[in-house]
């Protein structure tokens, strides 16, 4: 344990004024109802306003998704598993469907691949906007947060036209997608939305990403290096902020990504600011990918495989076997491992939530020495999605 005198000396060296407290350390339960922790609970051991020790305390969202999935027919699991990560519900749908496709040996039609790729990218843009909202609120820049929420609303409306639901889409199914895109009008609206969001990015830069106050709050906190991040299994923007150019879309290409042109932004500082900037750059790349997809246009053909097994969904069976599929989500490498024993329900489904790596052990280590005001900022810069951990 760091002694109090050391903490005070360190704080003074950093230009902060601290009252020398004579009391012992105290325990602070942070979350799960605290709005800054997003349904996650951390037990903090505090000395003054410094964190001495942090213990991640998950379990408040646990609903046993994996066990429930063993009791449901293959197709109804989509409606269950997408609830794992609310800001980005299309990702669990996609990985589960891709794993089932692989077990059956289905080649998804081109049109379905185009739609799936577009939906995944729309989900990424919407999740990044959601994240900007969270970060802005935690930094106190409420204006930017409200803008981000409003722009995300445009994507929600498009999702509603496409899938019939705003948040829980239940759209990607094994073999393709549930229904076809509504028509050219929808594509035009998507194009307008992409342009609109891109035109608003400089505003976010001015208010958050190039803001002096935001830089002071983000720079140099929660630093991790490349080797440490890899050993701890960190993926996604958090890993790329430490200098490892690992992106599932590039490393293990799926859907239409091999045909698309995009960059994987990499920074090497590994602090909260680098993680925030990586996400800002990726948002731009995702909009660029959507541009290319819209330019390409949806290929003609069926939007799901034509297979007699799809006619009777409750009795739909999948041959025995297992498969692992993963995609790049805004949180990192999101994977699903599915085992079938040939019956009409899965034998075992395990979801690999990316947050389990950076939301438990990494968080416990990065929080040590941070100020209490930095705790929500570090949590947000890691982009922790608690249901990934609880499942």
């Amino acid at each position: 344990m760091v002694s109090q005198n050391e903490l005070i000396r360190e704080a003074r060296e950093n230009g902060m004024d601290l009252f020398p407290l004579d009391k012992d350390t105290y325990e602070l339960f942070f979350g799960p109802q605290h709005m800054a922790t997003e349904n996650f609970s951390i037990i903090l051991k505090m000395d003054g306003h410094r964190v001495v020790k942090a213990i991640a305390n998950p379990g408040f969202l646990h609903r046993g998704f994996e066990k429930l999935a063993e009791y449901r027919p293959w197709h109804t699991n989509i409606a269950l598993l997408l609830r794992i990560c609310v800001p980005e519900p299309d990702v669990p749908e996609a990985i589960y469907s891709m794993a089932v496709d692989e077990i059956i040996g289905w080649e998804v039609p081109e049109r379905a691949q185009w739609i799936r790729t577009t939906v995944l990218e729309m989900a990424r843009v919407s999740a990044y906007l959601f994240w900007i909202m969270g970060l802005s609120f935690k930094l106190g820049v409420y204006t930017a947060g409200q803008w981000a929420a409003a722009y995300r609303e445009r994507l929600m409306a498009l999702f509603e036209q496409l899938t019939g639901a705003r948040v829980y889409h239940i759209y990607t199914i094994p073999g393709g997608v549930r229904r076809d895109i509504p028509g050219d009008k929808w594509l035009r609206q998507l194009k307008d939305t992409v342009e609109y969001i891109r035109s608003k990015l400089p505003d976010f830069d001015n208010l958050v990403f190039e803001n002096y106050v935001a830089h002071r709050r983000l720079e140099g906190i929660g630093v991790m290096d490349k080797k440490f991040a890899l050993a701890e299994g960190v993926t996604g923007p958090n890993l790329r902020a430490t200098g490892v150019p690992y992106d599932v879309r590039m490393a293990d290409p799926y859907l239409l990504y091999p045909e698309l042109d995009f960059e994987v932004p990499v920074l090497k500082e590994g602090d909260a600011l680098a993680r925030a900037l990586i996400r800002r750059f990726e948002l731009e790349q995702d909009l660029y990918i959507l541009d290319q997809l819209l330019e390409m246009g949806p290929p003609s053909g069926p939007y799901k495989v034509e297979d007699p097994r799809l006619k009777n969904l409750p009795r739909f069976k999948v041959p025995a076997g297992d498969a692992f599929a993963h995609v790049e989500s805004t949180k990192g490498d999101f994977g699903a491992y599915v085992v079938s024993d040939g019956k009409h329900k899965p034998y075992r489904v395990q979801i690999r939530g990316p947050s389990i790596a950076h939301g438990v052990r990494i968080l416990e280590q990065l929080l040590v020495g941070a100020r209490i005001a930095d705790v929500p900022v570090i949590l947000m810069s890691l982009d922790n999605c608690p249901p990934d951990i609880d499942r």
Partner: protein
Amino acid sequence: MGEVKWEREQMLVDKILEKAPYAEGKVRRERRIEFSIPADRIRDFLMLLKENDFELMLQITTVDWPNDGELELIYQMWSVTHRTHAMVRTRIPRDLDKARIPTVKDIYPVAETYERDSHDFFGVYFEGNEKMEMPWILDDTEQGLFPHRKDFDMLTYVKKKYKLLDRFDEDKDNYVI
């Protein structure tokens, strides 16, 4: 034909098997390889994988096979260098006192979390992981029930815990909760 098509993966498997004669390995498809090893060699094998640039541990999956009396542990590894996913399968006995396997948290620190998960839900004891006894996701009343095992009776548990929710019919052939 498969070997010609996935030459890079086959070379990787051969290279690893050369140093691990106790293991069996094969190529599943492009960028997917698979090994099965005896449970007591898990540490040696994962150390070998780490030397061969498998930097990331994606997860540890536990699958219950009550008919065989075994639990299957699948260590899912990803190599950023080789761009390949490796599944390392091993089987251990299902009995609670025999379901033990050495921890790998000193090789891949992230394994600690997955091992706690597997301990909570399947009752696998990872020797050397000091956080085994620490409470994880389940409530105190649920400790020791191992809800992900196939013989865990979820219906009885749900009826007992949520007395008001008496809507499940046992005679129904194919209920969906």
